[in-house]
């Protein structure tokens, strides 16, 4: 897991592969194609690439128009612009009529770290998740990105999928099974389950190693599809381990942690500890340093697991 590859590079390459296989795929970008790497698609398929300029709202609706005519538009911009600047267009013109638009939300979380708060995106999952008809996906590494892109293209209906600027450890190999709405158990365990999404998956795996050394049997579950949630696998984890830690590069309000807490509160209440950014904006700085400073480090996950275990054990002893 030592090798690191940037998710955005994998995304650009996956789009090119897709472009060769499916001539209905068109790509739209809003003057950030060099950043999001859709430029790779433009180089191969200039006739199917549309640079709409710095006009995300316009771009989202143009994509909706393409979708009504049978094309599969991939709309690429920074995540905060997709879900906030073009949020109304997503709701009205994409989600409401259930159009086949794929929203490639680049630069998720704090990954555009040096550019600072204006470019970071910590409430995108919450927004996308609350829009009816929307499928919400967060990929965890470069390999998963490559496997997910054609699956997303084949899926009928609107998808918001969150990417990252960052170079992150490669977790999966080319045999990785990626199915929309299905979680993946990466490691079995019986005391606590770490449920992670996106780039926090690598950190959850590291945290699990540390916990095992302290004799805590730790399960690691990846939830890449925040909506629709794999309720079965999450409920099973709650029943088997009795303590849950969620880990996401997102506000603790409205994201993965909230989705899981909503599910468990209804069907199987167990202690849930949430790792993510607290209800605050971050700042400029090196990426890993920001993740540490804003509560998304490996040791934050370890500490959260111990809190969860303590709560679980005290409720059992009662």
């Amino acid at each position, binding site marked *: 897991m030592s090798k690191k590859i940037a998710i955005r590079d994998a995304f650009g390459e996956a789009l090119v592969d897709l472009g060769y296989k499916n001539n209905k795929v068109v790509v739209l970008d809003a003057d950030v194609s060099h950043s999001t790497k859709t430029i790779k698609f433009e180089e191969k398929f200039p006739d199917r690439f549309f640079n709409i300029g710095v006009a995300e709202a316009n771009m989202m609706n143009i994509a909706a*128009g393409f979708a009504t005519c049978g094309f599969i538009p991939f709309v690429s911009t920074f995540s905060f612009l997709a879900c906030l600047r073009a949020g109304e267009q997503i709701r009205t013109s994409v989600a409401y009529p259930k159009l086949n638009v794929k929203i490639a939300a680049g630069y998720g979380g704090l990954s555009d770290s040096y550019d600072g708060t204006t470019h970071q995106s910590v409430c995108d999952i919450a927004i996308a998740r609350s829009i009816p008809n929307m499928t919400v996906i967060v990929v965890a590494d470069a390999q998963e990105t490559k496997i997910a892109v054609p699956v997303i293209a084949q899926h009928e209906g609107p998808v918001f999928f969150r990417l990252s600027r960052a170079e992150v450890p490669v977790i999966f190999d080319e045999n990785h099974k990626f199915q929309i709405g299905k979680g993946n158990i990466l490691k079995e365990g019986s005391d606590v389950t770490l449920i992670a999404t996106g780039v926090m998956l690598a950190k959850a795996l590291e945290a699990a190693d540390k916990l095992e050394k302290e004799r805590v049997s730790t399960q690691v579950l990846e939830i890449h599809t925040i909506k629709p949630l794999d309720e079965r696998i999450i409920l099973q984890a709650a029943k088997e381990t009795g303590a849950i830690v969620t880990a996401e590069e997102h506000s603790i309000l409205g994201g993965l942690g909230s989705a899981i807490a909503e599910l468990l509160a209804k069907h199987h209440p167990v202690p849930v500890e949430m790792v993510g950014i607290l209800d605050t904006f971050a700042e400029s700085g090196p990426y890993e340093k920001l993740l540490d400073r804003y509560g998304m480090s490996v040791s934050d996950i370890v500490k959260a697991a111990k809190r969860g275990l303590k709560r679980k054990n005290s409720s059992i002893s009662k």
Partner: protein
Amino acid sequence: MFSHSPELIKELEEKTQRFRVEIIKMIYNAQSGHPGGSLSAIDILTCLYFHQMKIKPEDPSWEDRDRFILSKGHAAPALYIILAELGYFPKENLSTLRQVGSILQGHPDMRKTPGVEISTGSLGNGLSIGIGMALSTKLSKKNYHVYVLIGDGECDEGEIWEAAMAAAKYKLDNLTAICDFNRVQLDGPIDEIMPLDSLPEKWKAFNWNVMEIDGHNMGEILDALDKAKQVKRKPTIIVAHTIKGKGVSFMENKFQWHGRAPNKEEYEIALQELRGAKE
């Protein structure tokens, strides 16, 4: 004087007069809706659907059909009466406008109403969607035409001008926008709420082919739609000067009738006026 026969013009005029009655009836029945902008747009819609556009009401998803987008979605009653008249759905539905379970939502819903190309209602979206359709036409090497009706108040939205730039960039000569320029928006006259003059000059500056017409004169509407199709390598906008509430004296040019249903007395007067004009 016009390139279309007086018979055609007369036939279309008779239709619109009948449609105006139906619009008032629908909104009165629902006790909710937008009479002002429906009555200003109905002549344009009638020319599009009963003469200009290539459509097959018996096959709404026919690939080569021309597309129409009602970007000013609040004029939905005007679109609904036309779609019903053409047979996209039975006319009995018209009396269910805005009611629970109806296929006729307050604003057009492409998943509920046969013949509606795209769900609209939130202003500023339709022209951009039209660009996506027009680009699709070119990419699939088809030759259908895309028509988008926008409102003048809608031109306050920044996205209209984003779309104006993009349509010119892609030289979309298969895209025709029509602006229902009735000079009255929800809260008052556009000159008070957000002045637009000179609207034609603005579009010219954005590299569009621009025409100005009387949007209630069938001959002028038909001719402008013909000319728009002949222009190459530029999108066209037809700035159609219209009267909000056209045909009902007490509604004409009154912002108060943007989104209000008539009471019983007003309803009867309105019908009397519209039927009188017909006879």
